[in-house]
């Protein structure tokens, strides 16, 4: 059962913030976040390993609530380059589950 993401799609104006949520029914060892641009491979953004862990990279950060098996990705002051489809994912054992995906479009 793959993780479920919300929203499915979001359109932002440059400079606005967004939150993408990810919820798993299976207990995951960790949560990964990837961004995929059209026609390209997914690119790793960050991994959260421990319950309650938060991480940040530039204006993109994330949190992972291990008890609830929920993770959120926070994009602040969005840039045009943030456009793409965002996938959360995680593994139980050696099988990796990608989330349902969130399409993010940043417009000028």
């Amino acid at each position, binding site marked *: 059962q793959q993780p479920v993401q919300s929203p499915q799609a979001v359109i932002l104006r440059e400079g606005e913030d967004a939150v993408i949520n990810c919820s798993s029914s299976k207990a995951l*060892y960790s949560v990964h976040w990837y961004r995929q641009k059209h026609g390209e491979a997914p690119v790793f953004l960050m991994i959260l390993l421990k319950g309650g862990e938060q991480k940040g990279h530039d204006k993109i950060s994330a949190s992972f609530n291990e008890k609830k098996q929920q993770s959120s990705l926070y994009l602040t002051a969005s840039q045009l380059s943030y456009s793409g489809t965002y996938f959360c994912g995680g593994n139980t054992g050696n099988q990796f589950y990608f989330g349902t995906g969130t399409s993010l479009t940043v417009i000028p």
Partner: protein
Amino acid sequence: EPEVTQTPSHQVTQMGQEVILRCVPISNHLYFYWYRQILGQKVEFLVSFYNNEISEKSEIFDDQFSVERPDGSNFTLKIRSTKLEDSAMYFCASSLYSGEHSYEQYFGPGTRLTVT
């Protein structure tokens, strides 16, 4: 910077034919994966490979599929008797560790398979 490479970038084949998709993972990585992405849909896990054997596989990875590490560098996905619905982008990925010591996966650029 080390990267995962895949060949060919695009493969066109006729229904019923066999195809082999090739990948060269990052050299010091231990875990290798194949994923499939049908156009406009989510990325789907096919199989993971560790220590020269399949570690886990999904329901999609049936007898039509097989993987091999024929030498120290290549990692291949063979699809026998291709069907129209096998048309998709196939991504190879590798990571240093997996499981509880999960590490990020590095993806190759993908092979677009078109079955006609």
